[in-house]
């Protein structure tokens, strides 16, 4: 559509996907490029509205490395599975809040997941990776959970990331909360609260180290989370083989 060498840069700029140097260079270019100015005006409304799609969650500093690892793994799986593997499923409502503009340090739980109802999960090691990531498959026992639902815990360097697929949304007014179960038997609360995207999938980082943690539990809790579980665990995943 345009002969401008930066024709596709406006989108990346509006999404905060340029480095600081690239963003500065684009801003200089923008002052003199009518085409890119037009792109900015056309796309900025959509980019700004993304903030209404998810609630704000402060990401732990180590999360970036774990996301990179998971995305690489998913990309490899999707390439192996073919183009139909990632087709969106039918719509389901999900509840989202606000996310600040250009949230470099924030992670939306849009990428997070969960929906569960009385699950107990046994862990099966699916495999390790050259980067030292071990993925434990969660076995879902609760019949009311969406058929085809699955969950897995990826453990890298003693830290975990829980992923779910094809899970229902949490009940209205509730979120899913991750708990850590140690040898003592009493689950410890975390600030890992999540919902699921409309296709029932998502990923949530398990805060802190898994050292001394026997299992990861997930329950449905009132919005904002709880200090003690108010319902039975919906999902549990071991943290070791």
């Amino acid at each position, binding site marked *: 559509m345009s002969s401008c060498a930066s024709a596709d840069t406006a989108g990346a700029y*509006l*999404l905060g996907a340029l480095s600081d140097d690239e963003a500065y260079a684009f801003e200089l270019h923008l002052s003199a490029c009518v085409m890119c100015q037009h792109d900015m005006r056309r796309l900025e409304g959509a980019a700004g509205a993304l903030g209404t799609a998810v609630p704000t969650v402060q*990401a732990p500093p180590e999360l970036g490395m774990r996301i990179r690892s998971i995305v690489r793994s998913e990309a490899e799986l999707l390439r192996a599975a073919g183009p139909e593997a990632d087709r*969106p499923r039918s719509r389901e409502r999900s509840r989202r809040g606000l996310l600040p503009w250009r949230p470099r340090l924030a992670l939306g739980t849009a*990428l997070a997941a969960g929906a569960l109802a009385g699950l107990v999960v046994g862990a099966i090691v699916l495999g390790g990776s050259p980067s030292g990531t071990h993925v434990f498959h969660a076995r879902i026992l609760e019949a009311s959970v969406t058929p085809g639902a699955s969950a897995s815990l990826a453990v890298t360097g003693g830290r975990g990331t829980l992923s779910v697929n094809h899970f229902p949304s949490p009940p209205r007014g509730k979120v899913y909360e991750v708990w850590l179960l140690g040898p003592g038997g009493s689950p410890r609360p975390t600030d890992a609260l999540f919902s699921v995207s*409309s*296709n029932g999938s998502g990923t949530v980082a398990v805060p802190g180290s898994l050292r001394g943690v026997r299992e990861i539990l997930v329950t449905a809790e009132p919005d904002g989370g709880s200090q003690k579980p108010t319902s039975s665990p919906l999902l549990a995943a071991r943290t070791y083989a």
Partner: protein
Amino acid sequence: MRTLLDDLPAEQRRVIELAYFAGFTHTEIADMLTIPVGTVKGRMRLGLEKLRLRMEISGVTT
């Protein structure tokens, strides 16, 4: 808005989510997905363009 985002083609939704929600740059996303940087930027632009059109159709305002 979440529904509009979820209805995007998966490859466009993914690059938007990784950039906007997870804070990765286009070069980092290209590296993760092993696709060219230009493809990442193109998907971002196409995704935002579709979101804009669907927002107009759905009456979503900012």
